[in-house]
């Protein structure tokens, strides 16, 4: 099977086969790996690659293409999409807008909301402050733009992933308002 792997923005074509049970051949770009594979505990993998031994943790939600990988303390977030699926997705993503849905990165309480719909914001400008684990965390805008809507309310708890506000990109060629 062939996959397109994405890690830190770089994509790699990956081919996988299992010539013998427990022995996998994985090709990353033009590099081949023969892997003696075992999963002694769920989501804990023991890989032997040319004698080198790696203990690797790999977790993924059942319907997700994102794999959370740990090796020797470091964390890698790898997207692994079947090649044919990826091509389809690429085609569909042509018309995507630059609109930014700002979501809560963690569970917490909204301490203060610093912007209103219609506000123009700079990249890096603080949009709101979230309180979690006794700390105040500034949620900043990744882009220059206009606040389209604000969902967060001061004093209200949010879960990780909850929408906080939406920032539309600032496109100077079409003056706003």
């Amino acid at each position: 099977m062939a996959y397109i792997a994405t890690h830190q923005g770089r994509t790699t074509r990956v081919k996988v086969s299992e010539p013998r049970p427990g022995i996998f051949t994985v090709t990353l770009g033009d590099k081949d790996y023969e892997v003696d594979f075992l999963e002694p505990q769920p989501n804990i993998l023991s890989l032997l690659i040319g004698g080198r031994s790696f203990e690797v943790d790999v977790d993924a939600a059942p319907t997700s293409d994102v794999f959370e990988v740990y090796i020797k303390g470091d964390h890698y977030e790898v997207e692994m999409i079947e090649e044919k699926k990826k091509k389809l997705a690429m085609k569909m993503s042509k018309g995507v807008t630059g609109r930014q849905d700002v979501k809560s990165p963690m569970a917490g309480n909204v301490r203060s909301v610093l912007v209103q719909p219609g506000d123009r914001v700079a990249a890096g400008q603080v949009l709101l402050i979230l309180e979690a684990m006794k700390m105040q965390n500034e949620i900043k805008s990744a882009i220059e733009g206009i606040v389209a809507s604000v969902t967060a309310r001061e004093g209200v708890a949010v879960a990780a992933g909850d929408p906080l506000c939406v920032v539309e990109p600032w496109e100077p060629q079409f003056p706003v308002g």
Partner: protein
Amino acid sequence: MFKKILIANRGEITIRVIRACKELGVPTVAVFSEADRAALHVRAADEAYCIGPAPSRDSYLRYDRILEVAKACGADAIHPGYGFLSENAEFAEACAAQGITFIGPNPRAIRVMGNKTTSRVAVYEMGVPLVPGMRENLTSEDQALEWADRIGFPIMMKAAAGGGGKVLRMIARREDVAAAYRAAKSESLAAFGDDAVYLERYIENPRHIEIQVLGDKHGNIIYCPERECSIQRRHQKVIEEAPSPIVDPEMRRQMGEAALRAARAVDYDSAGTVEFIVSGKSREFFFLEMNTRLQVEHPITEMITGIDLCKEMIRSAAGYELPFKQEDIQCNGHALECRIYAEDPDNRFLPTPGKIIGLRVPGGPWVRDESGMYEGLDVPIHYDPMLSKLVVWGSTRERMVTRMLRALSEYAVKGIKTTIPFHARVLRNEKFLAGDIDTNFIDTQFRPQDEAREKPHEDIALVAAAIKAYRRDKAKALGRLGGTSEGGGQDASAWKASGRVRRDPGF
């Protein structure tokens, strides 16, 4: 000894105290907030009672409820741990009024040391050095020059307003004093609406070094070799070691005796810590404050002295005399502590509450894990993000460091990000290895946001993910799999909540 001890705290320190009590043969009582029914300390104690809703002010700080529980279940002593009620003199007095022993120092010690002004006055009278500086504000350029000469260069010009004295500028030479005075006044006026400024010694390469003391109710008190706690983020300790790389036996004795004088100023009669700021350049040390409780980093002192501080603190509260004298205190080898926080070190140490879906803890020689974690724990958002402390001992500093690196490599926490990989990076830093650290170490050596930093095993990560994906897709094709029955499948969704923080555009 006490008949029953209530621990008015949560998390790893409660586990630590429960372990000490078990070893002393004393039954333990845990209290918990509604958010902590599933916490490990509830399971570890002999008894456990709910004391209120999640916010600390409604539970762990409600000492009326805690005292009620203690009375009702027959506890005759309360250990406050650290944080929460541990430095609350009123609580200590309320315990005494109910005939319950507060496991900590006398209330006056808590009160005097809990206040910046009274503590400085108290220890100054005992001859403990304070950072040289003015106790009032400057009134003229001439006075600034006069004080600058008295304090000695380099000096800091600080604003009286703005809390704790915000540093406006460092002055290295006498000829710059006058100009700095004028500039600082107008800056302070602009920033705080108040132009009062004063002078204090500028501490070069400031290091945080502290002395553990241990007293009993019979007037005995000893000090232990120092701990160096200069590795900090947001002014909070992250890594501590004992002894300090820059303290020699003579300086140890001087600091220890200064700490004893500070402690004696308030008839100190329990475990406590005298914190000093030390110039990395001149190795002069100055009193910062005294913490009237057991501290997070007490284990590293335990490892080099062989003293069970937690147990001795309980025994001392129960009226036992210290079982050793100053001359018995050892300084044996080196110990290191790494605090494992639920924080993302590659993303400004932002908290990462969420569910721990996998956990493997290190073992083997001279490795000590002090943890409140378990696989399946949902780390609540309401409290401090510290999950555990990893402590190692080594016969030399080098062995201590290599051992910690080995232990960190065995520590796996899945489901939320932690500071584990960050610690390994600190321990490979050349300045750290040379002992050349100060309280600005993390800020100067590491980028606050460094999610795309090079990681050594990207190829293996891709290989592993590819095989995992392949096996899943094959299994699906064979119809062997439903939606959620794969091992770890359901739990992995916890990643949505925490692991994938950085995919969101708001950061």
